[in-house]
């Protein structure tokens, strides 16, 4: 009996020591041979972290992922010569998931922000987006500019952890900000008339205003912010970053990014894939 305990204790200590050693070795910065890119090529799959944002990335009827970001990620993987694997992750936990190695890269319309950049490395922007507002016709009747929304008796909804939430806070600090886990909940809240407006990346507000013309409208004709969008990878991996930056330069020069962007944001042809 006593011996058993000693054996168990030794086993536990060994496991702990192994974990610590592994942790310590994992801390060293990757060399070119162990960069994300090399690992992806060795594995044969690029694991992409993303989150559902219409029309950036979403599931179609058969459960396949479609969207602007999906096109970008698929082409990127094709040119590395590997398969893609999409890992849908809640937006609020997407950076920790990248850091703990659940996937190799975030391709999910992530806006480049200084506070995010402290935790991850960004590629050069491959896209730009802006924040836009969709408001309730009755509640926000007559609202025409940002200042109309910046009042204590106005409540604004946005998605947790997005740049939309940050923008709402920055531009409408007096308004009450209510956060939801995804846009559909925020829009639902707006349709129910419990908030005055929803702040989200364009073109979602415009799409919603068209889909619910009887209840919603666009108070501002233009986006009120402009944000660069980049790929996010773990820090200290200049080899992969160099590849990504130059890949973006190439596809941008080709005009491919613009063409894809027009398809997903300028047309609604893709809608039959979803419903």
């Amino acid at each position, binding site marked *: *009996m006593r011996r058993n*305990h000693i054996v168990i204790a030794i086993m536990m200590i060994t496991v702990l020591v*192994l*974990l610590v050693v*592994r*942790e310590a070795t994992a801390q060293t910065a990757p060399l070119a041979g162990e960069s994300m890119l090399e690992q992806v090529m060795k*594995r*044969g*799959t690029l*694991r992409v972290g993303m989150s*559902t*944002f*219409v029309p950036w990335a*979403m*599931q179609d*009827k*058969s*459960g396949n992922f479609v969207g602007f970001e999906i096109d970008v990620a698929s082409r990127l993987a094709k040119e590395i010569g590997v398969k893609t*694997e999409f*890992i*849908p*992750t*809640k937006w609020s*936990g997407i950076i*920790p*998931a990248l850091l*703990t*190695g*659940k996937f190799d890269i975030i391709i999910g319309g992530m806006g480049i922000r200084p506070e995010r950049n402290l935790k991850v490395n960004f590629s050069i922007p491959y896209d730009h987006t802006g924040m836009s507002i969709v408001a309730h016709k009755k509640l926000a009747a007559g609202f025409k500019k940002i200042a109309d929304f910046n009042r204590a008796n106005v409540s604004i909804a946005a998605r947790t952890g997005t740049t939309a939430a940050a923008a709402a806070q920055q531009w409408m600090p007096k308004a009450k900000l209510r956060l939801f*886990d*995804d*846009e*559909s*909940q925020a*829009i*639902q809240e707006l*349709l*129910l008339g419990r908030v005055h407006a929803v702040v989200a990346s364009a073109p979602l507000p415009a799409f919603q205003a068209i*889909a619910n013309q*009887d*209840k919603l409208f666009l108070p501002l004709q233009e986006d009120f912010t402009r944000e660069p969008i980049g790929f996010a990878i773990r820090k200290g991996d200049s080899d992969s970053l160099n590849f990504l930056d130059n890949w973006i330069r190439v596809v941008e020069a080709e005009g491919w990014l613009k063409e894809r962007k027009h398809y997903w944001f300028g047309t609604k042809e893709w809608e039959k894939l*979803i*419903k």
Partner: protein
Amino acid sequence: MKNKIRFTPLDAVLIVLMLAAVLFLVRRIGVEMNYRWQWPVMLQYLVRTGGGAWAAGSLAQGFLTTVKLSFWATALATLLGTIMGLMRVSHSLFYRLVAGSYVELVRNLPPLVLVFIVYFFIGDRIMALLGMEALIRSASPETQAALNFLFASPARLSGFFAGLATLVLYEAAYITEIVRAGIQSIEQGQWEAAHALGLSRWQQLRCVILPQALQRVLPTLAGQLISTIKDSAIVSVISIPELTFQGLELMSATYLTFEIWITITALYFLLTFTVSMGVRRLEGAMQTKS
């Protein structure tokens, strides 16, 4: 002897009232909140008929994952819970302390916190240590297909295991207590009689105590099984494509909030109610036997 169920006027009144309440609710949502119901499109998320063949839509896939998750979680949690439960009543202080600390630690944490801890810290490190990822990827197509059938697609496997581990850890803590209570509910005389027959402690447990304890705890154990199905919704936060997660994804793509939540509710109820009926049958059978 069972009383025959008779349909009385009161039943008719109750049914009409309930239908009226449902209709009122639907009307309120439809008219006063101006919600446009789009039920016909929901069907394709359950069953698709693309290309002549039938295939599971995204909600049906989520439902299957929930079933798999609940099945494995129950099986493994029962195993772990039984071992821990036996340790709880062991003569050795060491075993009692190990099982006791486990139960107290897990039962006093919110399951949501546990999910994140396992997913981000423990699961990841242990999976990396075992080299699971590389092992799965290098496995033969047949093995991968088998894994896909039993658990999840190779790509989602490490997430699936993290979720499964959390559920097992969480549910097993309750099962431990159920098993402990079952064993302790057996009268001292049974132990003494078994001892007097010259049985070793293990034999006493296996041949005398456990069969009786099992019969007593079966209803509670079955209740825990239903709890496991319900608790499995919590792993949606770590992006395991089970029913709740698939529903949330679908909602953010289609904005059919009410239709999807109602469908999810119906599917969960279908699953738990079936299990619950099965358990009632089992209990009935056990009672007639004893």
